[in-house]
């Protein structure tokens, strides 16, 4: 899988490790990270997130070139950083049970 990004978002290049196509995969990346790493992703992307969404909305769902799709997946990882930074101040849930115990069912089962 490539990690190319659209030209106007090349400054996100240091964060391409957060690109992952599945929700479970993105959660694993979050849980394997430090809070400071999540905070950095949050700080870098928040000021440009509306610009990112505007860019992505040039494309129809399911008809998106690979570099823009990578940006989409990166924006989903940003959402994990939102939970960590705006609420829990941690990559995990301080008074909660572990994320690892949740089994996410394949969403395709339910369409």
């Amino acid at each position: 899988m490539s990690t190319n990004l659209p030209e106007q978002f090349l400054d996100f290049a240091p964060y391409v490790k957060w690109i992952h196509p599945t929700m479970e995969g993105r959660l694993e990346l979050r849980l394997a990270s430090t809070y400071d790493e999540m905070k950095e992703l949050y700080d870098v992307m928040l000021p440009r997130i509306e610009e990112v969404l505007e860019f992505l909305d040039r494309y129809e769902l399911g008809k998106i070139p690979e570099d823009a799709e990578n940006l989409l997946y990166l924006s989903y990882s940003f959402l994990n950083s939102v939970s960590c930074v705006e609420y829990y101040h941690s990559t995990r849930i301080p008074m909660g049970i572990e994320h690892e115990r949740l089994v996410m069912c394949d969403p395709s089962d339910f369409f």
Partner: protein
Amino acid sequence: MNKPTSIKKPSKGTWTDAAGLGKERVPVTGCTSPDYFEQEVGHIFKKSWLCAGREQEIPEIGDFIVKEYKAMKTSILVVRGRDSKVRAFHNVCSHRCNKLKWDSSGHSARLTCKFHGWTYSLDGKLMSVPDEDQFFDLDKSSYGLAEISAEVWEGFIFINLDPNPGQSLEDYMPNFYHGLKGYPFHEMTRCYAWQLELNCNWKILKDAFSEIYHVPFVHNLSVADTFANKSRPMAHGVHFDVFQNELRMSFWGNPDYVPPAATAVTYKHGPSIVKRGDDASDLPEFMNPTKIPNWAGDLMQVFPCFHITLTANSYIYLNYLPVSVDKMLWELRYYARPAKTHAERFSEEYAAIALRDSILEDTRTVEYTQSVLSSGAKTHFTFSDQEALVRGHHEMTQRWAGPYPDPK
């Protein structure tokens, strides 16, 4: 009898009184006694309507799902037949009683046992038996699969393990059955689904999801501010109904809530279970019974283990499945309208993340509760008026399965 009814709280009364509930403390033994658990299995779970999922999981003829009911020691196969009807069968071959379908979902033109190839049609009739002439007077017409009752309401598939259910689904849950007609379940087809095995009695988790009282404490880092503000620090439920087999709490959302920066972006573009201020005027009259302007949602439960929390933009589906007296399987799903743009899809992803993360807060307390419940330190639970649904559920349980054992 099927007209939706709502309890009216007397001006100086309590919800507990209005619902005709008691006020005494409730023994913990209903959640700790293995014998009582077996009574629940026999008198509740083998007799009542259980939700097995959504019709959209089996859209095509031959699509099937398998539901494992560990406490009831059975596996149920739910199949869409050639006539498009949804049927449910015990997932057991008539030959040597092998489990027929091993996958949790799939598609089959016919149902073939992997053991010796006995093959059934989608409506459960035995079609073919390999080496049939080696059997003795085998009358195939009397060897169909064991069918159980299945009904579909608003796209939810309900099954009943009782060979002769005492009530139709409509008579079992008349208020929701009719009152929720018009809620856009059929539009909210985008689904995020999780399962979680928890070390607690099924009622302990259900109790935790039947009141708002815990929210300012358990969710103080996350969603508490969306429910409470200075004028309503305890975020009281605004209306409670305890019907025969149905329970409902309507709750208020904090209109002063200001979401943090990135959360606000997600609310701008898409759904969220804790987003406030959506227009609810198109929803069925039965919902938001007090017609408050800052209505957030209606939490609805059908005894014993079906739960939906409906908001104007999306809903949560919960199923509390017993495994043993101190173990359960929880099904949690988030349903929303499918996104039409990437920005909406982005917001929907966040709604699912936020739900997933906040329910992990709830699930710690329930396991800690169960871990000390058998200690004998405390013999009873105490419920406030805001916990009327919790009490209502415990009273329903005892109506079906008998009084909780004496804790002394």
